[in-house]
């Protein structure tokens, strides 16, 4: 029972940094949807604009960044047209976010119970006692053992995995519709990573959450995403269902990314890498941004920036010479 309208439709989002050396288009025309009850993975290498896309949705782009074009349709209403006050009321209430660094995402001077309660007191006008009971409840839901006692712990008394659970509890306190998780497991070790992802999946099923999961870990994507959006140098280069994207990637960049995941074809020589580096965003060459690193580049790639268009049903890619499935 997939709803007709996406929870969040990002249309042509452009976010720029105005630096002394000129404008850097860190996110350039990003377009994709996030649906209720589904997980959309946003992948790409460092600096490709994943996190900035997420922060743009929250309208928390750090200085000197600016959202300069596009629409963020939240239930059909443009978030960019909302006032700062309206936006503040949405944050933490309807749209929640979990950050990468659980070690620094909690205020060291307050107990975790305080910090979870803060959200409820803020958006729900909850009383002290109510908020605390709810905090214990939430901690139990995110799998913090002995929540009744842990609620009075300070962040430094918790492990990284537990802190990330606390962050999740904070994010889920007001029962949001959309959860943006910015590399929620990157700072955790492998076993804890699996636990957090499982927790995320369970919470999503239980609450019909829309999740935007930002990661550079393709393993995480394969594990937990329904749709995948691949970004490269500020652009969305491929959008499709996780299953299809992994089996038959259309964009050479996605294909190369998949080939460079270790352990897929064990013991067959050295690990494959994508040659070259991400181009400097402030001095982009004309044509396709991936051209210089692409083994399929043709002459048109040098002059025309490929638009994001359907290559198969429900599968979009921005490429003049997409990978043809065997």
């Amino acid at each position, binding site marked *: 029972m997939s709803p007709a309208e996406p929870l969040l439709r990002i249309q042509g989002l452009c976010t720029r940094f105005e630096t002394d050396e000129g404008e850097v288009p860190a996110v350039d025309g990003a377009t994709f949807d996030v649906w209720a009850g589904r997980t959309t993975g946003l992948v790409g290498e460092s600096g490709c604009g994943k996190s900035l896309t997420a922060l743009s949705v929250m309208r928390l782009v750090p200085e000197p960044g600016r959202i300069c074009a596009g629409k963020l349709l939240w239930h059909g209403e443009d978030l960019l047209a909302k006032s700062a006050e309206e936006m503040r009321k949405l*944050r*933490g209430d309807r749209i929640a976010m979990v950050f990468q660094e659980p070690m620094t995402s909690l205020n060291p*001077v307050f107990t975790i119970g305080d910090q979870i309660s803060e959200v409820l007191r*803020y958006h729900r006008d909850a009383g002290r006692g109510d908020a605390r009971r709810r905090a214990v409840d939430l901690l139990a839901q995110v799998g913090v053992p002995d929540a009744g006692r842990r609620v009075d712990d*300070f962040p430094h008394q918790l492990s990284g995995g537990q802190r990330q659970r606390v962050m999740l509890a904070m*994010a889920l306190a007001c029962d949001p519709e959309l959860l943006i998780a910015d590399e929620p497991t990157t700072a955790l070790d492998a076993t804890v990573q699996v636990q957090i992802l499982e927790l995320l999946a369970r919470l999503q099923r239980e609450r019909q959450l829309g999740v935007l999961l930002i990661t550079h870990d393709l393993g995480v994507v394969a594990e937990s995403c329904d749709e995948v959006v691949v970004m490269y140098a500020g652009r969305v280069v491929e959008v499709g269902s996780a299953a299809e994207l992994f089996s038959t990637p259309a964009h050479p960049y996605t294909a190369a990314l998949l080939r460079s995941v270790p352990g897929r074809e064990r013991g067959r020589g050295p690990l494959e890498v994508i040659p070259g580096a991400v181009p400097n965003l402030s001095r982009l060459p004309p044509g396709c941004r991936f051209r210089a690193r692409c083994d399929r580049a043709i002459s048109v790639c040098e002059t025309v920036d490929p638009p994001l268009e359907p290559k198969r049903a429900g599968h979009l890619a921005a490429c003049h010479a997409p990978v043809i499935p065997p």
Partner: protein
Amino acid sequence: MTGAFLAPSSRGRVWRRFRKRWLSLGALGLLGLLFAAAALADELASDKPIAARVGGHTWWLPNLTRPLELRADTVQTLRARLNRDQGDWMVEPLVPFGPYQTYSGQSAERPSAPPWGPDSDHPLGTDEVGRDVFARLVHGARASLTVGFVAVGLYVLIGLLLGLLAGYYGGVLDAVVSRVTEITMTFPTMFFILAVMGLVHVKTLVPIMLVIGLTRWTDVCRLVRAEVLRLKTLEFVQASRAIGASDLRILARHLVPNAMGPVLVAATFGIAGAILIESSLSFLGFGVPPPAPSWGELLSQANRYLTHPGAWWLTVYPGLAIFATVTAFNLVGEGLRDALDPRQGA
């Protein structure tokens, strides 16, 4: 890492580390005694008893309530009227002289004119008009501590506010605050106060405290600004924005408590500085109005007796009081700084 914060999460740890420094701990104890002495000055040195029953009347704390019936009486006169057979009793202060009382009791071992040296009546001697040095020291502690705490409280408030705004909002505001800070830093507080005193003709502690408060906030401001610049890049500030917290809430709840550690250290050193300024001004005669007691004012009396070896107690005791207090505040500040230093072990 969290050791740099003086907030519930680290209070225990900071105290554990502070406790290990016996010198700072001793200094803290000394300051405790000093506070107690200042608070209980009327019980330690007063010309009225703490409590007494004389001639059928019972008075509690007449040294505070100053009842009319006892206006003319002192501990000495009451001693004479005390009739123990009729159930009279009296609880005397440690030293039965107030800070303003000139004692004219002549005796064989006392030369005719004050200052008189320490004896059984005046454990620390008297000043040049016969007022008890101990009484004036204990009561003078109030002036010193009041100046220290009010002036520093004022400048911590100013510095905290300006530092927070400059660090958090940056831009033009930061530039303006930073320039004002740099200009203010060049003001010589001491001479500024002298100039102000010359203009306003109010001989109380108020202008002293105001001027110290208005000129010494620069260090706190710079500390807070630097802390906020560091803290605001941490993810928890962004995270609290992501839960919909307003700027005011982020400032008050997330930045202030985290920036308080270094401020507290600066404030402790600042109190020592303010006490020194007050003492210096009183020494010069620009401090508390006479006959109000102050450590600096006691020292200024001693000035006249330095040339011949007469009244050493007028130099030594107030000097010791200033020295011990300033040193104690500095030691506590140092201990606090080390205890808050995140680079030190747990």
